[in-house]
């Protein structure tokens, strides 16, 4: 390959820009490794096994939403609703699960409700050509309202023990089940994105929808399915999270987690303009964000200060996206 740089003047900024726009994985991996090294040297208890497993458990929980967001953003959209869809599907599924003691039925219902919300998003955005930001902002409020209305703002207790044991347990008394699940899901999704025809459709649709249409790619189908996948991921999150916290509530995922998910996806190489991103990158981005939150916890940083810092990180990350795609 002759991709050598033939500029006379060496510009550091240009070099960095080229590096992070040519290989989107370098940034998330290096930033995560650097953060991990610094934290383990400076923050007490950061590197002990229990804390690391703790980080991976949290990673497992938010990971599904981040994978869903990655699909949506690659095809050029955004999904703000997935974190409230988690609550909406969790409360429906949990209510039925408690009433019937049927774990399978409850889990299926959680998936069905979340896919239903994904379908609303997908139809509105892909086929009715509405704007993703506005549509998913509306379904975010809709799902939140539905969850509160359905439960009358009460938490649902008494989930079957077997359900809690399956999804919140640790394999060999060591590896958290959510972490295993997310690894499996991430591998499958990564494979789909990089190796299949469908994955290529998503990237090309996000890169330039009009050209994709002319090239005979069914862009509407491509966009529609990303919201279904995002919905499905919200359903899986509902299952895992209900089991881990042993209850289903109307606010299973806190508001600022949405920011974490978006930040992780963008750090991982996705662009708000579509056409780029990868599951592996997103996973590293999420690891970075999760470690940051974990460190704030360990150091006893005020949650409000933590929000300020995380908000700043998100703004910086979006700035990075602009810098990278310009």
């Amino acid at each position, binding site marked *: 390959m002759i*991709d050598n740089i033939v500029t006379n003047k060496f510009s550091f900024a240009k070099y960095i820009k080229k590096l992070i726009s040519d290989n989107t994985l370098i940034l998330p991996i290096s930033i995560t490794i650097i953060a991990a090294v610094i934290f383990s040297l400076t923050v007490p208890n950061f590197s002990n096994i229990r804390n690391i497993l703790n980080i991976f458990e949290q990673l497992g929980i938010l990971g599904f939403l981040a994978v869903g967001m990655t699909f949506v953003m690659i095809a050029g959209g955004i999904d703000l609703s997935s974190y409230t869809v988690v609550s909406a599907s969790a409360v429906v599924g949990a209510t039925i699960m408690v009433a019937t003691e049927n774990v399978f039925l409850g889990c299926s219902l959680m998936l069905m409700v979340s896919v239903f919300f994904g379908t609303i998003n997908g139809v509105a955005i892909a086929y009715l050509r509405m704007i993703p930001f506005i549509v998913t902002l509306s379904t975010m409020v809709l799902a939140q309202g539905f969850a509160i209305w359905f439960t009358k703002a009460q938490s649902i207790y008494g989930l079957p023990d077997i359900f809690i044991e399956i999804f919140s347990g640790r394999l060999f008394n060591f590896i958290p089940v959510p972490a295993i699940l997310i690894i499996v899901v991430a591998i499958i999704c990564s494979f789909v994105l990089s190796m*299949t025809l469908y994955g290529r459709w998503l990237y*090309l649709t996000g890169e330039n929808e009009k*050209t994709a*249409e*002319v090239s005979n790619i069914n862009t509407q189908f491509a966009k529609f399915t990303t919201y279904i996948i995002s919905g499905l991921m919200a359903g899986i999150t509902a299952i895992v999270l209900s089991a881990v916290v042993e209850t289903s509530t109307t606010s299973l995922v806190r508001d600022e987690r949405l920011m974490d998910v978006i930040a992780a996806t963008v750090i991982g190489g996705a662009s708000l303009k579509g056409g780029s991103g990868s599951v592996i990158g997103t996973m590293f981005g999420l690891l970075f964000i999760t470690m940051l939150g974990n460190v704030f916890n360990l150091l006893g940083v005020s949650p409000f200060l933590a929000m300020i810092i995380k908000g700043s990180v998100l703004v910086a990350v979006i700035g990075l996206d602009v810098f990278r795609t310009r």
Partner: protein
Amino acid sequence: MTINQQKLAMLNITKSFPGVDALANVSITANSGQIMGLVGVNGAGKSTLMNILGGIYSNDSGKIVLNNKQIHLKSPNDAAKNGIAFIHQDLLYFASQTVAENIYMTDLPKNNYIPFFTSKSKVIENAKQVLDMLGSDINPNSLMEELSTGEKQIIEIARALATGSDIVIFDEPTSSLSIKEKERLFKVVRKLKSENKIIIYISHFLNEIQELCDTYVVLRNGRLVGNGNVADETKNNIIRMIIGRDLLTSKSATKETSNETVLEIKNLIQGNLLQGINLKLNKGEVLGLWGLMGSGRTELIRTALGLDPMESGEINLYQKGDTNQVSPKQLLKHCGYVTESRRIDGLFISEPVWKNITSGNLSHYSKGRLNLIDSKSEMQSAQNHIKNLKIKTPSHSTTIENLSGGNQQKAIFSRWLDKRPKILILDEPTRGVDVGAKQEIGNLITKLAQEGAAILLISSEIEEIVSLSNRVLVLRDGVIAHEALEENINEVNLMSIALGKEQ
């Protein structure tokens, strides 16, 4: 006013991009009161050179001297401060604002009575003066979006005048103008010349250079290969300099075509523009679709292919003796479509060349129940296309953004060559493409038709329609106004029909 002689010199300019030496040691000088024509194939370095002068790129070495004083152009703002105005190919304007406000956008006159307010009457008065100076009768009160492309261009020139620019650069200004608008533009450019401005005029069209310019500069592969007075040089000599070899006389279209119809469009209606289009496309022919700007050529194609909604109409596809009525979306599956504007719906601009080439034929590269995509064979066939069409690129994995316009266009062509559809629709296939690539693309079109493809060719360049088509349909007033065959396919005839002067 005293005649103040100005002189601009760009000396030993060198500029490299990753993988490409865009300019090597190029020196040019331009004098006021003269129009300098800048010619060369795509990728020759014309745009790069002018972008350096416009402050958009910075040169690696060399200097720019204005009136014996070196100037540094680090941004478009610096260029504007030095009186350099760049009239881009894609016009930049505020559509919902008036003409007058667009002209004075950066420098609205202050209101004498109310501080911080601008004076609407003064803007209009000033704008009128500038437009008068250009000999234009555009109403300064009309909204920008109401103007035609040619008029918008004149507003852009007026803005350059209003801001007191002494150096005006035109980048292919006529590529989307009608003949009448072109004449009006030339008048304005000559007017600028009489105002003693330095004018640099980039164009592919040698006729324009000969008609308009005093001096010429030819670039090839980033090097200066010729300059002088236009009057002293023949057209053929300049062409030789541009492409570095003799121009082969372009072969005209194949004479023999079958009468086997492949596609029939019946009574297609859409909006005010298309009021019942009927056409038949035969196997092995190049069917030219000719009409003036705004006659609905592109809209017809987009509607027939389901990219725009269709009000009514019928599309019949003939395959292996069967007639199938299909929907526009289904028709798209059987067609290759080279679109009018590469950047908008032709390229995946930040993807590598190979992904751009294979994107129209992806199902061919995917296998098995999981539809796994075989990137290796994708890259392999992309490399073959790059070799066959002589696409100039450092590698198949170079981002397509880094290629010149002509090479991008060849990549889009290979996208459809890869799929080998029976019907090829080419909308302005050589727009913004240099003389050499234009000829290659022309030969390719003829060859594809000979091999049995049915080709629908749309072009605003009448020479192209005339030299390539077997049959020409003239689109006017929303219907096919005329069908021209054989010796009736000539420039005079087609133009007079399009303008509505039927014999």
